[in-house]
């Protein structure tokens, strides 16, 4: 294994009252790897992702992208964020712009790329997620699943080195979950490095190279998806996975 693309060392983060939300988390991600983080609500998974692109300030610890630490970066933090794409749980498209303008904004303003060139790429990607005919629509005219697919395309257009997906299907109706996760699976096939927080266990199993189980601000278990879902090592993970099963009611 070469140098990890992303390294997190001894990350600590607490909100008010000094209650730790992340308690000494260390983690690394290799290029092309897809890591899924699972865990109960409030265990710090989302905060962990938000700390990685510095939407949340960390208390102590080291964050490194391609070996360069950026946890104290102030001015050039947007340069780091350019390389770390992120998609959120709630639909975060800009409501006052058409789908195409949502996609063009950052590549043109941040990367100063040529409009025609970005537009061509944006249309290609939209076509791949089956939404080319929506390019002149406004976000409110799209369904939740369509919006999330656009949000993924928007992040991809910045050519990020890593994608962070924060429960991107948690706010969707069940039948829309699949269309979004299908796009993520496609991305994984292209070799995109991804860190995914999700509650969709079947999806986690099929997309992940490695599964991380977090609880109470710590990484409790790190395993291959097969091992983790079929034969978890820790009791806490077993307990968590059991909560997804229901006993058959016998009458």
């Amino acid at each position, binding site marked *: 294994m070469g140098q990890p693309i992303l390294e997190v060392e001894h990350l600590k983060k607490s909100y008010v009252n000094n209650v730790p939300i992340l308690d000494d988390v260390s983690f690394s991600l290799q290029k092309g790897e897809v890591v899924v983080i699972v865990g109960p609500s409030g265990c710090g998974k989302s905060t962990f992702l938000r700390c990685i692109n510095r939407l949340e300030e960390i208390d102590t610890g080291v964050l490194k992208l391609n070996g360069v630490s950026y946890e104290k970066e102030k001015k050039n933090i*947007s340069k780091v964020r350019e390389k770390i794409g*992120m998609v959120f749980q*709630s639909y975060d498209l800009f409501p006052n712009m058409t789908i195409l303008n949502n996609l063009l*904004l950052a590549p043109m303003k941040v*990367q100063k790329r040529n409009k025609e060139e970005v537009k061509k790429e944006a249309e290609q990607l939209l076509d791949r997620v089956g939404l080319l005919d929506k390019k002149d629509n406004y976000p409110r005219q799209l*369904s939740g699943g369509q919006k999330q697919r656009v949000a993924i395309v928007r992040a991809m257009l910045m050519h990020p080195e890593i994608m962070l997906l924060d429960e991107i299907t948690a706010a969707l109706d069940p039948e829309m979950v699949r269309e979004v996760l299908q796009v993520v699976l496609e991305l994984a096939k292209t070799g995109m490095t991804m860190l995914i927080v999700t509650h969709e266990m079947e999806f986690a199993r099929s997309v992940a190279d490695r599964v991380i189980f977090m609880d109470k601000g710590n990484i409790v278990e790190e395993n291959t998806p097969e091992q983790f879902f079929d034969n978890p090592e820790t009791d806490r993970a077993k307990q968590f996975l059991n909560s997804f099963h229901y006993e058959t009611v016998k009458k």
Partner: protein
Amino acid sequence: MDFEFIREQTPLYIEAAKLTLHMAVIGVLLAIVVGLVCSMIKYFRIPVLRQIVECYIELSRNTPLLIQLFFLYFGLPKIGIVLSSEQCAITGLTFLGGSYMAEAFRSGLDNVPPIQVESALSLGMSKSQVFTNIILPQAVSNSIPAFCANAIFLIKETSVFSAVALADLMFVTKDLIGIYYKTDEALFMLVIAYLIILLPISLICSFVERRVRYAEYGD
């Protein structure tokens, strides 16, 4: 109702309406400028200036325009500042309207969801890019309804300008009642004059409000 009298006095009302509208337009535009500046100061939490803006807003919103005008017209000359009736009227309206516009725009800024800012930041945009491209346009369309309501409110407030000897609609009406005792006719024309000024503005406002609906959130 003496329609002959109404016909005769119409030119007087037209002149007064022009004056009212003239004062109102300048006042409202200046109020918007003051409001934008004040809301920015509050939004970016600029020290010292922010406290001053805070005091101004409370003072302006919690005193009647009539008292503000009296202060400008009768109070300021005592310390050697003499303003004309027009200057008093515009200053007063701007002073009052500025705080209302500031609050309208500030709530527009506050109502831009944090997720909008975060997703723009995570696309690598700098803080100033996020402000000009994401926050500002959404805040403006958020606050259009409140802006319109304030504009109409301020135009109606111009009816107290007669107190500082400005020959506006109210002034002319009171004059005519005093001279001819034609109370019904004078008040009738006053109402009509205000409606002629305000109805089109109100219609334009609802049109603009419909146009900016695209910025609505949710599904």
